[in-house]
C-alpha cells in the first residue's frame, strides 16, 4: 500500500488549461502616478512618560528617560535613550521579614537603530518599527538588608535566622546588553508623536557585587535568572524638521 502511495497521489493530479487570451491592444495604457509625497526629516526629541508615572505610583521606583532619534533614510532611524533609574527590589520571605532588600541606582544609555516596517499612506509619517539597541549602564547597588535562608520547606525554620541590616553599597557596577524592540509611533499633532514600544533584552556582561548579584540594572530593568529582561517605553516626542524629502 505504502509502496504505491506516491502513485495513488498522482491519480488526483489534474491540469487546467485556458485557451483564450486577452488581446494586448485592448488595454488602455495607464499613466504612472508622478506625485511624490514628502515627509519631514529631522531630529525627534522627547521623553518617556511612563517613568514619571511609575515614579509617582510606586515608592520604590524613580526614573527619567530622554529619547531621541534621527532619520537617516526613508525607513531608517538612528535612535538613542539616556536615563536615570533607582529601584528597590524586595524579595519577601514573610510579610514582616525580607529575604533580600536591595537598591540599584544609576544612569544608562541605549544606542541603536529603528527600522520602520509600515508603508505610510500619502504624506503620513507613522511607524510600526523594529529596533536594535546596545545598552550600557553605570550604577551602584546597596544591599539594604537580608535574612539568611535557614528554613526548610516542610517544617519551616527550627532555629531563628540571622537578620542583617548592614547596608553595604557596591559602587561602579556596570552592565552591557543587547535589546530588540518592537513598537509603534503615531503623529497625533503636527510633528508631535506618541509612541509605545516593547523590548526584550539580553545581558552581555554585568559586574556583580562581591558575594551578591546585580538584581536590577538601570535601563535594563529586572535581571532574570537567565540574564534576560523586558522593558516598555511610552514616549511623547517632538520632531524638529531639518528638511523635507
Amino acid at each position, binding site marked *: 500500500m505504502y509502496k504505491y502511495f506516491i502513485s495513488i497521489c498522482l491519480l488526483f493530479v489534474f491540469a487546467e488549461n485556458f485557451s483564450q487570451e486577452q488581446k494586448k491592444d485592448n488595454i488602455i495604457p495607464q499613466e504612472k502616478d508622478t506625485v511624490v509625497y514628502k515627509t519631514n526629516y529631522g531630529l525627534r526629541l522627547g521623553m518617556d512618560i511612563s517613568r514619571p508615572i511609575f515614579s509617582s505610583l510606586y515608592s520604590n521606583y524613580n526614573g527619567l528617560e530622554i529619547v531621541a532619534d534621527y532619520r537617516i533614510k526613508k525607513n531608517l532611524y538612528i535612535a538613542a535613550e539616556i536615563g536615570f533609574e533607582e529601584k528597590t527590589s524586595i*524579595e519577601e520571605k514573610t510579610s514582616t521579614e525580607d529575604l533580600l532588600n536591595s537598591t540599584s541606582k544609576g544612569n544608562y544609555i541605549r544606542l541603536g537603530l529603528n527600522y520602520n*516596517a509600515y508603508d505610510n499612506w500619502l504624506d503620513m509619517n507613522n511607524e510600526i518599527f523594529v529596533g536594535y539597541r546596545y545598552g550600557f549602564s553605570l550604577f551602584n547597588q546597596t544591599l539594604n538588608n537580608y535574612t539568611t535562608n535557614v528554613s526548610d520547606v516542610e517544617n519551616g525554620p527550627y532555629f531563628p535566622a540571622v537578620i542583617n541590616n548592614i547596608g553595604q553599597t557596591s559602587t561602579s557596577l556596570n552592565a552591557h546588553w543587547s535589546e530588540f524592540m*518592537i513598537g509603534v509611533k503615531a503623529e497625533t499633532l503636527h510633528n508631535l508623536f506618541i509612541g509605545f514600544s516593547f523590548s*526584550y533584552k539580553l545581558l552581555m556582561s554585568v559586574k556583580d557585587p562581591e558575594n551578591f548579584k546585580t538584581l536590577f540594572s538601570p535601563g535594563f530593568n529586572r535581571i*532574570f535568572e537567565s540574564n534576560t529582561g523586558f522593558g516598555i517605553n511610552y514616549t511623547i516626542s517632538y520632531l524638529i524638521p531639518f528638511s523635507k524629502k
Partner: protein
Amino acid sequence: MKKNILFLVLLTSIFAACEKDDFCIQNPVTSRLIIDFYDDTNRETLKNVQRFSIIAEGKTDSLFVNTTSNSIAIPLNSLTQETRYTLKKNDENGAEVDDKIATFTIQYDTEEEFVSRSCGFKVIFNNVAFSSDTNGWITDFTPTTIINLDDQSAAHVQIFH
C-alpha cells in the same frame, strides 16, 4: 506577509524566553547535618535507633519524636557557634524508665553566601567539630571534625551505638 512573519518570530522568541525565577527550588538552602547510625559491634551495617527523639538545647519542640530511623538531617543554629542536641532512644518497649539519653555537640564558624534571588543567602558552616558525652548511649562517632558543611549528598558523621 514577510513582515508579519518577522513579527511572529520576534513575538515567539519573546514569549518562549519567559520564565519564573520567583520560586526557590533548592531545599534546604542552608545545609543540614546528616547523621547515619551504625551498629557498634558490626561497624559496617546501619542500625536503626528505636523510638528516637531529638531536641536542641534551649528549644521546647523536638525535631523528631519517637521515630525509628538510621539516618537523620538536623539543622544547626547559625546565630551561635555551637549547637547542642539531646538524643533519646528506647530499645525496650517504650516505657519511660528505659529511655536512654545522649548529647551530641557541634561547634563551627559561620559564613554567609549568596545563592540566588529567590533563595537568598545560605549559611556555610566551617571548621565543624563534633563531641559527645561519654556517659550517653553514643559509643563512638567518626569523623571528629570536618572542614565545611555545604552539601547534602552524603552523610557527614557516623554515630555508633
